[in-house]
């Protein structure tokens, strides 16, 4: 995707009534720069990679594979992975399988409420290409149209081992400074938003959910 410079400093929030406009922030998100000193940035990335807090939001059937991840057999907590009940404190969003339009709306909301740097792992075939629901009237077929995905894990459904592998790979990517999904989302905000609004027809929330 191309970088599109944002033309307006605030968002329209056209989906909100005049009253609701007052209650939501209409600020446009801005990308953040890496720390000026590379050593610090690397160190920060190391910390981020070793403390991955997953948002406890199971969007579809693959989410069932998240549970074994924390149990004795796989014990992801070894790698600093932990569940977090609120998006404010989470750093990884694992899209657990097919995403219906209705869920997508919530996913967008939750993703935008996470604080950067933040990462998305899309689990299973469905977010990647629609999977077995490719012709459903109600599930999206390409998740990365709507939100920046750092890592896809294929399978229907993928085993926990695959997920664990994905986490380790994500850690490596983070340490390498390659996971800039949050910034990418903001830099291409208008396209992403247009795509989201193409499928989410009752857009009754602000354009960016702070």
């Amino acid at each position, binding site marked *: 995707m191309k970088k599109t410079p944002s033309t307006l400093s605030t968002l329209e929030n056209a989906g909100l009534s005049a*009253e*609701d406009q*007052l*209650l*939501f*922030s209409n*600020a446009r*998100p*801005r990308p*953040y720069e890496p*720390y000026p000193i590379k050593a610090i940035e690397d160190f920060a990335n190391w910390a981020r990679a070793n403390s991955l807090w997953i948002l406890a*939001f199971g969007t579809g059937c693959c989410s069932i594979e998240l549970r074994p991840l924390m149990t004795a057999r796989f014990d992801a907590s070894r790698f600093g992975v932990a569940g977090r009940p*609120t*998006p*404010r404190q989470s750093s990884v969003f694992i899209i657990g399988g097919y995403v219906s339009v209705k869920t997508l709306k*919530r*996913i967008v*909301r*939750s993703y935008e*409420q996470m604080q950067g740097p933040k990462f998305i792992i899309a689990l299973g075939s469905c977010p990647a290409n629609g999977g077995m629901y490719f012709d459903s009237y109600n599930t999206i077929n390409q998740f990365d149209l709507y939100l920046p995905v750092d890592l896809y894990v294929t399978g229907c459904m993928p085993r926990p081992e695959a997920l664990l592998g994905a986490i380790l790979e994500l850690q490596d990517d983070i340490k390498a400074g390659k996971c800039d999904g949050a910034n990418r989302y903001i830099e291409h905000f208008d396209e992403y938003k247009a795509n989201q609004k193409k499928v989410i027809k009752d857009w*009754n*929330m*602000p354009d960016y*959910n*702070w």
Partner: protein
Amino acid sequence: MVEGFITQVLLQPLGIYVVALGAGFLVPLFDRAHRSSAILLFFLALAGMVAIAGINLLAILNGAAPIQIETAGIAPPFAINLRFGLYEGGFVLAVNSIALLGALHWLPSLRQHASALLLYLIMVMGINGMVMTRDLFNLFIFIEITSIATYALIGMERTGSVLAAGFKYIIATSVASAFFLLGTIFLYYLTGTLNIDGMVAQRELISGPIGFIATLFLLTSLLIELKPYPANGWGLDVYETAPGGIAALISVGVSAGVFFALLKTLPLLDNYLSSIAVVGGATFLLSNLIGLKQDNARRLLGYSSIGQMGLLTLALAATVQLGIEAQLPLVAGGLFINHLLAKAGLFWLADLVNRNSTRDWSVLAGRPGRLLLFGILLSALVGLPPFPGFWAKWVLVTELAAGGLYPWITVVLLGSLLEAAYLFRWFTQALQTRESDTPDTIRLESLLPVALAALLLFATGYGMAVQLESDTLIMFLPLLAGTALWLLDGLPGLLKSLLMLVVVAAGGAWLTLDLEGLNRIFGFILVGGGVLLSLATQYRSDVRKGFYPLLGILLLSLATLLRAHTSLEFFFSWELMTLSSYLLVTLGRGGAKPALTYLLFSLAAAYFILAGFALAYAASGSLELAALGDTGSSMGLVFSLLAAGFVIKTGGLGVHIWVPGTYGEADDDFTAVLSAVVSKAAIFGLLLVAAQLGIRSDIGLDPAYVLGWIGMLTATFGALMAVFQEDIKKLLAYSSMGQLGYIVTGIALMSHLGWVAALYLTVNHFLFKGILFLAVAGVVLRTSERLMYKMGGLIKNMPFTFVATMIAIIAMSGVPPLTGFGGKWLLFNAMMEKGWYWLAALAFFSSAVAFLYMYRLLHTVFLGQRKLEHAQLREAPAILLVPQFLLIGIIMVFSAYPKLLLEPLSSAISPWLAGNLVWDGLSLHTHLGYWNAPMIMGVVAGVWMIPLLFLLLMSLTLKIQKVGQFNIVFAAERPHRPEDTHFAYNFFAHYDRALGFLVKPRATAFWNSIVEWSHTLAASLRIFYNGNGQTYALFIVMYLVVLFLVNGGLQL
């Protein structure tokens, strides 16, 4: 010749008869010529009668001997003689004056009936005769003259109900007269004379069966004429139906005459003093009880009249029984004058308002002048200062106590309380605006007699004060200031407020600055604090009729309270404070009803205090407050009574039910004064009592220990009840109740440290509760809401108010480093030192519970989600914020250097409880622990600043976005309305599930059932009044029989 006639005849007491009869003769003649001239003559005659009585009374007061009038120039027993002494003069003057005012009031009706003029004159003359004559048969004749004139006056009304009532009245009084005549003739048979003095001189002859029967007839007759319970239905019916002018004259004039007849025949009836007292007491108590059930205004006045006469009778009998006739003018005279003016005024007012049901008196709502008159008359009747009834009741109760007649004290106080209940309920009804009311059509000039009666009440009240007290000017200063402010009530609100502040500041400073010790400290809180908080009244610029004068009276009476040296002075200021604060509460939007509860509990408190002072006087023989300690064996009782009174006033558990309504419904700025300042008066009283009595070793620990428990339970339950409140002002009200509970416990500790804690808490409570109520006033002003869950998120609009509230709440909670911690620390140390471990544990618990409501207040009002309609609210007006931030400044200073506060507190206490706070530099040491406030302040500031700086530093690397109130994580949904996103309603629902059973409104239920019981009792006690004249007559006959039996008639 003419001159001689005037001085020799007309100006003599006998001139009254000459004038009355002469005018009575001339009036019909003049009427033939011209109606107006007849009326002029009529008034001239009445004025003349007043003048004659006045001139002669003045002479007697100046030391002249009582005037003996011998008709036909022959000495008794061969001729009728009259006497005009001090008592007679007073009564005659009073009755004639009221007759003159009554005639003024009645003028519109009098114009239509020329004969009424004649009858009126005859009636007044008859009453004069009843007072002055010394001949028993002549007394009968005057009674009959008065009666016939009264009958005729009643008969002028042609409506059926009046005539029926009149007929019952005639039957009853005729039977009574018959008894009187029989008694007279038997007495004559025994003594051979009709002269009362003659009979008294031969008192020993009146004995045996005939003597017994004779005096019994006489007594029954006089008592019946005074309308004793239950043989008084006929009187009530006349009061209810007759025009106010006549009813007033019957109530005050005829009754006065009969009462005087009883007074002068009392030497003959000395065997029956107990019976008379019982009849009077029972009538007083029961009529007032039955009055509770009555909603017809005139009949209510009837019950009140009968009750007052009962009280007079009781007072008379008790005074004679105790052998203190010297006090009779003060007691009986005071009660009589009080009743005379107040009741006449009320009857006239009832005539003018012309509404039967007391509920319909709401036509007076919103008419301050009328309400003021009404209020003055009611207050006088209830016996509030500065009216004569107050002084009379004071003397009566103290003398009853001195004589050991404790049951009568109970009767008098209970009856007064009941009377206050129905009278002020009436007032409350008059205060409530109703849609359906048409404005009353009272013309201003027709209120003149009522107003004059009210003025006379003030004058006579002052007169009595002069008799009893030397320092009257200071005592009356609040009233004078209030009157002055009231005269300026037409000015714009802000100006009045300023004026009031200036007056109070100047007066208060003059009154309190030379005080010392405890009083000085309370002077700062009560007067200084009152002025400071009253600054906030400037936030309302509307007229607020009556508000500023009353506030001035309240604050100045607090100042005079501190100056009081005698218990009378104290009680006077106390009652003045009660009355003015009551009236101020009624000015609030929905204040009338809770104000009634407030008044009744305050009066109950006041009566406890009165009883306590009376007992103290009885024990020590002195009214000096400093002599409270010399009460010997009754010390415990005195302490308990006084403490009970003050605890009611602090809102102790069980008697707290007045607190939420009063604080909730009073004007918002006044609530601050009420809670932060006025409640401290009770603390002052309690300390005073504790200082004089509580610390004595011979009183024993028990009452104090009980007091300690009461205080701590109040604190706990106050906090618990506050937790479940939705109404912000009621929450603070319960909070006040709880916080005062701690103070009470502190006082109950009776140790140096405990009192320091109590005083410290007092100062602290003043500081934070002043802030809180003013902050709430601002919030309520802006939102027009009092329910907290309807607010929320106001920190964005009212940041200063929020900061003030937050600091006040930290100061209340006891979290270091602000002042609250010191209070808790001192109290805890004092309790541990004393060994009150259970109380200490309870204190821990209640201060933890207090966190709940404190957080709730902050959260539901200022934090959370702001409502859409509150988006545009502005900050509270600056004039509200200024006092708040001044108080915050004081809190900060005291937090950092509590020594500034603690040193004076400690030295103020040392005269009573020796001991000293141990200071090591700035660190305060007790037996158990230590407290270095400045250092704590420093450390806290340090540990607070460092993370803040760190966070600020980190914020530089962050992109912090200020977001809207709906930008929250809401389980991936968006919030829809602030109302359902703001967690506020029933905030502590789970706490309710766990501990809610503790705060079921048991006290309210208890008091409600008391009310219901008394109403039921009243309903069953009034079954005698079935409206049938024959039943009434039967009661009269039975009264005779009962008196006969009770006084041992069968043993003859």
